[in-house]
């Protein structure tokens, strides 16, 4: 990975963290979208790394408080978003830019939110188990009482993925095209 790409990823990570910190309705987030896009453009491994990095830091800086035991689960949830981005790239072949793909990414956004919530609810139920709750009831309780938040997360993620997919991938594509002469120079001087 060259320096320019690394700098770009760091800027996006900083953007995600800033968005995580600013006041917003609960469970409305943009990190999974950016993680998915990074997975889509840079591959599953880079996407997974990006998502886990952002969530790891977010676990300590989140305005909702220290993530604690849930941090590994949040990290795992976001890794899946990055991996799904990479998988979607293979599934799609080439990244295309049409309204149809917006619809598909809206569904994927909902699915990523669902997976993320399932995993983090598993983490929450683990905390309940540690406080003495029955294991099966703990998971059911975590999922059931989190259903309103899941609904918000799924709907907002669908909207974010559906609306932002085209403009962001277009912008990234332009950036890549513009990057080409710089990349050549970089190689020239290296």
């Amino acid at each position, binding site marked *: 990975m060259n320096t320019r790409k690394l700098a770009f990823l760091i800027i996006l990570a900083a953007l995600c963290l800033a968005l995580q910190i600013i006041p917003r309705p609960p469970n409305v987030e943009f990190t999974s979208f950016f993680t998915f896009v990074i997975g889509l453009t840079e591959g599953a491994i880079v996407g997974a790394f990006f998502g886990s990095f952002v969530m790891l830091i977010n676990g300590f800086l989140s305005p909702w408080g220290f993530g604690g035991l849930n941090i590994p689960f949040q990290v795992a949830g976001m890794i899946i978003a990055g991996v799904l981005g990479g998988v979607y790239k293979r599934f799609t072949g080439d990244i295309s830019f049409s309204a149809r793909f917006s619809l598909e990414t809206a569904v994927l956004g909902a*699915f990523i939110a*669902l997976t993320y919530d399932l995993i983090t609810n598993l983490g929450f139920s683990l905390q309940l188990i540690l406080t003495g709750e029955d294991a099966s009831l703990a998971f059911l309780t975590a999922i059931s*009482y989190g259903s309103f938040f899941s609904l918000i997360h799924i709907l907002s993620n669908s909207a974010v993925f559906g609306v932002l997919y085209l403009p962001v991938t277009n912008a990234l594509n332009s950036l890549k095209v513009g990057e080409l002469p710089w990349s050549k120079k970089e190689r020239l001087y290296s």
Partner: protein
Amino acid sequence: MVEKRTFVFLILATIVWAFLASAFAGYYYLQYRNNTEQLDAAQNSLNKFASNYSQAANKYDLLLSEYASLHGNYSYFIGSNYAPLMLPLRSLIANLDKNYTSLFAQEDMNQSYNQLLSDYAALLQKGNVTREDFGSLLSEYYDLFNLSALRELGLLISQATALSVNVVIDYGNGTLEWHNQTKVTAGYTLFRLTQENAVIKSSYFAYMEPGHIRIDSINGKATIVNYTNPSYSWGYSWIWYYWNDSEQKWVSGPVGCDAWLLKNGGVYKWNYEYWHFP
């Protein structure tokens, strides 16, 4: 023919929908279960309360019948020495003790009960029991009997509900000590509340009523009484107040602190204040 790709996304969307629907169903199921459990607990508590109330009412009626019988004998007694009625009164007192044993463990109730016993013993020793003396002792018994029944009902109610009260201790030097949202059972008196929230010393006055207790010190701050000059006395005493919600002001306690029953949400104050007479 549906394209395979579309089919995959339709399945993904269905999974999301199915999960959400199941989660909401689970949520409503858990809520329903919790509500049912709470309702059952409330119903059990009410049933228990009703059953205990019946027992308490039976006990009260029986003791009241015994009292009414003795009171009838006293009212229509022929003669000047009422000593023959002392034995039935002793039996009445013994029955009272047997039925309200647990209540007499409370300090103020215990003091009232011991006072009754000692008054009884003193009258018995006199030999000649006048109508007035016996009437006074019978009234003392009746007061304690009613107070015991009231306290027991309060305890029964407390099995179904708890009260939340606030008390402030004003030391008179600008220091206010608040004890907020203190949970107590129904039938609690201000005396018991103070006992539980501070270290107190108190005195028992048999002839002061309603309520026989006077607070002598709270958390080491003792009352001061100066009677050295016969024409002018002064001192510092612990006076209690309750907050009148409708008038929005503190009202001085009209009875002894051991006779005042606390109400839910009530606010009470102990004030260390100066007084003089005249």
